[in-house]
């Protein structure tokens, strides 16, 4: 934390130089810490600490080797600092993913807090990569960090965006596919936030069904 304070102090000092100088010409006294008084430097804490992961499909490596932690954050400002300085999903290569998960939950089915869960899945068509993908992903992130689903936010584990040649996907992962009420609250709230039309519906699938599917389709447990 001292680091952070020091940094804030620094930027306060820098900012001050670009503002009109006060009339007094007293020597600066560096021993006295300059504490930020402006709201600009306040960080707003989030309910959860979040971890952003990046997955790059390199066939010469195993799945876990391809998964990389980018950064963690637990304030609104640190979220934006990260978001503002990384590539948008639409500019990632095919086969790449971003995953935002609560700290402590790995972005994989096998994690204890995912294994009984599932996901609300939104499949985009090719045109939507340019029109909607980045916008939808940002809204998804805001839903998560802002805890937009009331108490059902407790069930949220994270979100994943997959960039794929056939069509991109965005999903919100929840912890238990039997928690119907929470899942429905999240699904309808999410659809509303993205301003999606009532048709087509989006569907919820359990990770268990997704991982054990035999054909190309997975059973939909819920739809909204």
């Amino acid at each position, binding site marked *: *934390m001292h*680091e952070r304070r020091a*940094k*804030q102090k620094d*930027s306060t000092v820098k*900012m001050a130089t670009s503002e009109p100088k006060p009339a007094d010409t007293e020597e600066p006294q560096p021993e006295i810490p300059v*504490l*930020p008084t402006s709201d*600009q*430097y*306040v*960080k*707003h*804490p*989030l*309910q959860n600490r979040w971890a952003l992961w*990046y997955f790059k499909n390199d066939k*010469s490596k*195993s*799945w*876990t*080797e391809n998964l*990389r*932690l*980018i*950064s963690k*954050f637990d*304030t*609104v*400002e*640190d979220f*934006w*600092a*990260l*978001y*503002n*300085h*990384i*590539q948008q999903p639409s*500019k*990632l*290569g095919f086969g790449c993913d971003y995953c935002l998960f609560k700290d402590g939950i790995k972005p994989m089915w096998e994690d204890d807090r995912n294994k009984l869960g599932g996901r609300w899945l939104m499949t985009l068509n090719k045109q939507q990569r340019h029109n909607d993908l980045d916008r939808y992903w940002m*809204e998804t992130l*805001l839903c998560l*960090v*802002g*805890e*937009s689903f*009331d*108490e059902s*936010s407790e069930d949220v584990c994270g979100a994943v965006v997959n960039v794929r040649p056939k069509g991109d996907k965005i999903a919100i992962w929840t912890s238990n596919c039997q928690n119907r009420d929470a899942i429905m609250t999240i699904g309808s709230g999410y659809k509303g*936030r993205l301003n999606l039309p009532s048709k087509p519906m989006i569907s919820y699938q359990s990770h268990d069904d997704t991982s054990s599917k035999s054909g190309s389709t997975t059973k939909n447990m819920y739809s909204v």
Partner: protein
Amino acid sequence: MTSSTNKSCPIPTKVLTLKDWSQLPDRYSQTPGGTLFSTTPGGTRIIYDRKFLLECRNSPIAKTPPCCLPQIPGVTVPATHPIGKLQDLKEEMEEEEEEDKDNSDDNQFEMDI
């Protein structure tokens, strides 16, 4: 909260007595015992609406890249960035090393595709 009622709820408050300065939180934006800017009734969850979050996007702090961001070409640095090329070289070298290791070590994370 039941959505059927529009009555206002009192914001829950609590009073804490600090015995020592060390009990002060280490962030300016927090008060002792946990700061809740915008909370659900009962004060259990910190929630932010879309508008507020978007307003914070251009705060001075949000304009500074996070420290210790890993250098990932095309993600955290431009794909054509010199560091990107260096990174590729480094990865290649690491891969070679890995291959050497792999000869003696079973890769237990191999997945069936």
